[in-house]
């Protein structure tokens, strides 16, 4: 049980670190305003959903 919890926390930590490092990595020049050609699916909370783009 403790092994499983520790393993889960380790993987969660790896994900958190990778997310943080990715966030800190600068976007290449010319790619600051890339848009996915996305029509929007049922996941309306996604920041790439067209409804959010329209609000901006």
């Amino acid at each position, binding site marked *: 049980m403790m*092994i*499983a919890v520790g*393993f*889960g926390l380790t*993987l*969660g930590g*790896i*994900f958190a670190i*990778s*997310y943080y*490092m*990715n966030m800190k*990595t*600068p*976007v*290449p*020049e*010319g*790619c600051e305003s*890339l*848009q*996915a*050609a*996305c*029509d*929007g*699916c*049922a*996941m309306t909370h*996604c920041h*790439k959903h067209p409804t959010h783009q329209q609000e901006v």
Partner: protein
Amino acid sequence: MENLLTLAISAILINNIVLSQFLGICPFLGVSRKKDSAIGMGLAVIFVIVGASILSYLLYHLVLDPLDIEYMNLISFILVIASFVQFTEMFIKKYSPSLYKSLGIYLPLITTNCAVLYVALANITSGYNFVEMITYSIAVPVGFMLVLIIFSYIRERLDIAPVPKAFKGNPVALIVAALMAIAFSGLAGLV
């Protein structure tokens, strides 16, 4: 070799991830309006599924199974896939801006694609060895990309076709997807 070929053809055509398994429908409908974005999305999905499947497979057989914590496979695979996508995006941002411009925007979208998790789990539940796992992990996203590209060509034609107003957009797209699923079901029994 024949077994691997059968596995690949089955994964690409007969048990197609979108039209037979009904997985990955969100990106299938959302990113199939134009063929350029369909090709970009397809290539990104191939890369993510192959990479994530290898990592998940190794994680299961080298860590989860020896430690008798196989029940952690679902959570572990989700975290591995998410971390892999983060590292991939970071790597592409740093070392290949041109690749990031064409494919990078799709990587976060693929993280939540259920087809990625399905392939990682199926490799374990089906009891594939390493070579079979690689074959299956390449064949499934190739099938996804094939269907996505075909669908994008049809949708580009639908955009200029005289579709009734109530059916414009996703309704007629879903009807077309259903017809494609029926067409692909006719391939059953091929191998």
